């Protein structure tokens, strides 16, 4: 992300702004999109098309390498859907085409047994899996930004406390326990958490800005995310 370590990440350009020169996106924008969307696309392909791990990886790689370079973004109409939805539908088209092409080759040949993974058979729909993974990746990236920012500006303590509380997957420690563990006052714990959460929110917003079409898309995605 832009800016040297420790500096607050520079404001991202939206996709529309990045593509202002033409219909193709510059590399930087593409990198941002794939950083966020790789895992969600992979998961989507696995769940929807029941692909094996290897096949899904191949397809995802192909998608990002090929489809993204071409006129993918040119056909995007911000008024109709969010970029996230548009991308997902593009993946569907792409994978369906690939699937059809492969079946044409295989006709008359031996049928391939496709193992159905346990988690692919859950109640979650492919669309939900896509969105869930997308949220996960978004937060993962923003948390990485937060960690880098804290390390660069001497706020490691804040990050540690935030990690211990907000990122814990089991029982959360009490504020008092955290205060004792790190040798600070309990009010400091409250303040640090508030600061870290505020920071995280801003970083998430910045990451979102780099992968949404424009102001309206960004606002819609923000509203969807936080409710």
């Amino acid at each position, binding site marked *: 992300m832009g800016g040297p370590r420790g500096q607050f990440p520079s404001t991202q350009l939206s996709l529309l702004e990045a593509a202002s020169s033409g219909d193709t996106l510059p590399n930087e924008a593409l990198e941002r999109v794939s950083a966020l969307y790789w895992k969600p696309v992979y998961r989507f392909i696995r769940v929807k098309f029941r692909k094996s791990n290897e096949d899904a990886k191949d397809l995802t790689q192909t998608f990002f390498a090929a489809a993204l370079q071409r006129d993918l973004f040119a056909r995007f109409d911000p008024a109709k859907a969010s970029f996230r939805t548009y991308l997902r539908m593009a993946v569907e088209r792409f994978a369906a085409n690939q699937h059809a092409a492969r079946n044409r080759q295989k006709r008359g040949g031996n049928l391939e047994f496709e193992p159905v993974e346990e988690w692919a058979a859950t109640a979650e729909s492919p669309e939900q899996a896509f969105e869930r993974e997308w949220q996960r990746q978004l*937060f993962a990236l923003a948390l990485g930004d937060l960690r880098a920012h804290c390390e660069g500006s001497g706020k490691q303590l804040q990050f540690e406390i935030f990690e211990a509380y907000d990122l814990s997957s089991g029982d959360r420690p009490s504020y008092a326990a955290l205060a004792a563990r790190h040798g600070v006052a309990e009010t400091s714990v409250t303040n640090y958490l508030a600061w870290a959460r505020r920071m995280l929110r801003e970083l998430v917003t910045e990451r979102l800005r780099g992968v949404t079409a424009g102001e309206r898309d960004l606002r819609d995605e923000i*509203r969807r995310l936080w409710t």
Partner: protein
Amino acid sequence: MDLNDAVIDHLRQVAALPDLTGTRYELESEIGRGGMGVVYAARDRQLDRRVALKVLDSALAGEAQLIAHLEHPAIVPIYETGVLPDGRAFYAMKLVAGARLDQHLAGAPSLGERLRVLRRVGEALAFAHARGVIHRDIKPQNVMVGEFGEVYLMDWGVEAVAGTPAFRAPDDRLSQLSDVYGLGALLRFMLPASAPPALRAIADKAMRADPAVRYPDAPRLLADIERFQEGLAVEAWSEPLWHRLRRFASRNAVLLWLLAAYAGVKFLLFFLRNL
């Protein structure tokens, strides 16, 4: 970093908490989500009291403008409006300590108490309607009963988005009659299974599909309920004869008993004399 779903959900909740630096408020916790935004409990540092902060997620004019000039015991007073550092609009209003209507009903209140709560809601509606304000989203989740028994009708002017369709009027254009429908739906919701048919009929009349045959306004509905409470005939229900007689008898019980005593005494004396 491998984040599981629970952590993601937690982060979504806490990172959404509004930044109140620069305001006089100190955030405490999220209370709930309304139609247009999220409501938090906060503390007003200057006046040292707790308030409710509604943070709007869109810049459109919220209910604050709508109801700030309405002063009524059942309408939550607005203290302040403003803009947060992150650009979102908010307003501060009275923090109601009490229970939502569905929770209040879980305590099995008497019929009289239920009708009292409904009357308060109806009075607020009548007041607002007289000043051209429509609520649009009457449902039990929007009614609070405070710790002193006071009743509040909340979340004004938000068109009923998702949520229980049972309380939404089937009207094309929302008007005061849609609110009458909502009031009837509320009444029906609040009536116990053993409620008298007159009250059910009142609710039904308010909830007719055709707005023209409902009660024309909230005061008429309340008047019908009052008639019921006084033992009079109700506009919404044409009662069978025996019910009418029963009602007459209960209203004039004392006199009827006295007359019966007189007749009884007379008959007794008559027969005793003939023994």
